[in-house]
């Protein structure tokens, strides 16, 4: 489903030197598979997710999702592809503050080429336990609730792949397990492949496949 080959990403730092962040020879995630990715802070996990989602472009190499070679797509097409095939859950939720929970989910649909499906948006919010919070603005929701809206939003367009970047790190301890279960269960229900980045051993040990970025990222060795 997801296939990375000879992927390289370098940042130019303010002092002019180059920072090699990613150098991945080969990486694969199957359809519907759930993977947890761990690694030291600064080893390139977020950068990797950005590259997979097409938010950043790699310097070289290939990112393939299903049969789509997103590194070859023009930017606008890549944006559409991201809207339709890839869900993203952020560490800091990143709900849009001006919109209600329901509108945040609908917004994500708006950016894809599909039709707005209010029914599905409501269904998803009900699934994450927020049927009574649909018209609330993010500021009126607890952090746990905000992240649940974010999960519903990420799944709005029936993606093939969900990227979750430390989704429980900013959630209070009592809600962490709940969010984690929710993401894993909904991904399973919708047959969405999941790559979840985490720092937490607690979280990581619940996955059957644990990928340590430093082990397959050749760039990390030089840090």
């Amino acid at each position, binding site marked *: 489903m997801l296939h990375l080959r000879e992927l390289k990403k370098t940042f130019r730092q303010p002092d002019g030197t180059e920072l090699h962040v990613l150098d991945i020879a080969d990486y694969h995630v199957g359809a519907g598979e759930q993977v947890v990715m761990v690694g030291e802070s600064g080893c390139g996990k977020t950068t990797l997710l950005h590259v997979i989602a097409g938010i950043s472009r790699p310097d070289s190499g290939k990112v393939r999702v299903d049969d789509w070679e997103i590194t070859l797509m023009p*930017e606008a097409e890549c*944006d559409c592809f991201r809207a339709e095939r890839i869900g993203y859950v952020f560490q800091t939720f990143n709900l849009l503050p*001006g919109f209600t929970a329901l509108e945040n989910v609908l917004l994500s649909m708006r950016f894809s080429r599909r039709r707005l499906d209010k029914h599905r948006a409501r269904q998803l919010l009900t699934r994450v336990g927020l049927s009574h919070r649909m018209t609330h603005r993010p500021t009126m929701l607890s952090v746990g609730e905000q992240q649940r809206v974010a999960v519903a939003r990420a799944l709005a367009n029936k993606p093939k792949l969900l990227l979750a970047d430390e989704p429980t790190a900013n959630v209070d301890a009592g809600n962490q397990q709940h969010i984690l279960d929710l993401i894993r269960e909904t991904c399973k229900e919708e047959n969405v492949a999941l790559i979840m980045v985490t720092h937490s051993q607690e979280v990581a040990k619940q996955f059957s496949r644990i990928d340590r970025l430093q082990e397959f990222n050749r760039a990390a060795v030089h840090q």
Partner: protein
Amino acid sequence: MSLWKIAWRSIQQRAFVSGLTALSMGLGVALVVSVLVVYGVVAQSFHRGGEGYDLIIGAKGGKEQLVLNTVFYLSEPVGNIPYSLYEDLTDGKLAPYVDLAIPVCMGHSYQGFRVVGTVPEMFTELKYRGDQSYEFGQTADGRPGGGKGENFKSENPFDAVMGSTAAVRTHLQVGEEFQAVHGSGEGGHVHQQRFHVVGVLAPTGTPVDRAIFVNMKGFFEIHGMEGTAAHKEHAGAHEGHGVHDEHDEEAKQITAILVCCKQPNPSRFADVVAGVINKGPTAQAVQPIRVIADLFEGIVGKLEWVLLGMAVLTVIVAGISIMVSIYNSMSDRRHEIAVMRALGARRVTVMVIILLESILLSLLGGGLGLLLGHGMIGACSSVIVNWTGVDIGLLQFQKIELFLVPGLLLLASAVGYLPALAAYRTDVAQSLTNTP
């Protein structure tokens, strides 16, 4: 969830600042609207004076002076023309072209208001503002116009009719009397003969409101007496009125003649009459509408552009304030824009959202300005009616206002462009990492 709604939400999010910028745009637009309407009112009240007849015939000389004098009752009196010219129009060779000719005589005043000698047909046959009839008592649409009494009669030489403003200012009412003064100032010679007010005209919104009308016969008679008084020594021959009248008939002079030409083609007939008159040695004929249009263009025409230019500048300044407000918000919103991009929004989409926001703010301000402008004018309309007689309804739009919406759209796109470009260029990965 349309892009409009997304833009609207971001306006709502910063309701206070958005409200202020929309208000500043509103004030600018209100200014434009008031300038347009006020200018329209001035133009209308100015042009209106010359409507109702096709030609003015008066002594040779400046066209403008003749019009100012006979239409607006302003400026120095012009010379006179022989009464026989009037007869030419009513019974002579020009009669086939002429539907109506109204003689007017000037040279007297009362408390600063012109006393005009004329015939009763001035108020029965002549129309004003195209098709409106003069009213004593109620106006045609049933409004109490303040008019009272009735028109003066041809057989009563010393009857007078007051224009509505003149009546109010001089406090002369039906049944009261006044003495006309020679000339237009205060210091002139006061005639002994008293005129008797028989009617007060309903307001017309034309210069007629600011004049007093008397029977032309009486007008001639006070002149006759004048003559008698001044030349008593060698005018002793006058014995009876009959002889006196005979004598006056020859020397009778009038100031001007207002002429309506016959259907079906009054303007062509007017050209014919004007041609004949202008070839003659004694008088000139002018088309008041044309002269007034030229006068207006010369006096206030340029002013419109100056006022409009200033008002448009205000709108542009308001537009820039919209740009500043959106641009300032961009630093907070770079993150939001990055989130939208991460959700799959294209660069162009986020750019359009910002442009729509600018357009919404401008249109909102524009709508507010229209309401404010017309509301303001509507609130002042009774004062304006009193001053100028021009009745501007709350919703009397000027044609130029149609350009307001496309103009605002253009302005909004121009001022929205810079912040929209900033949205377009947002570095998604970097802005996502810099959590606010």
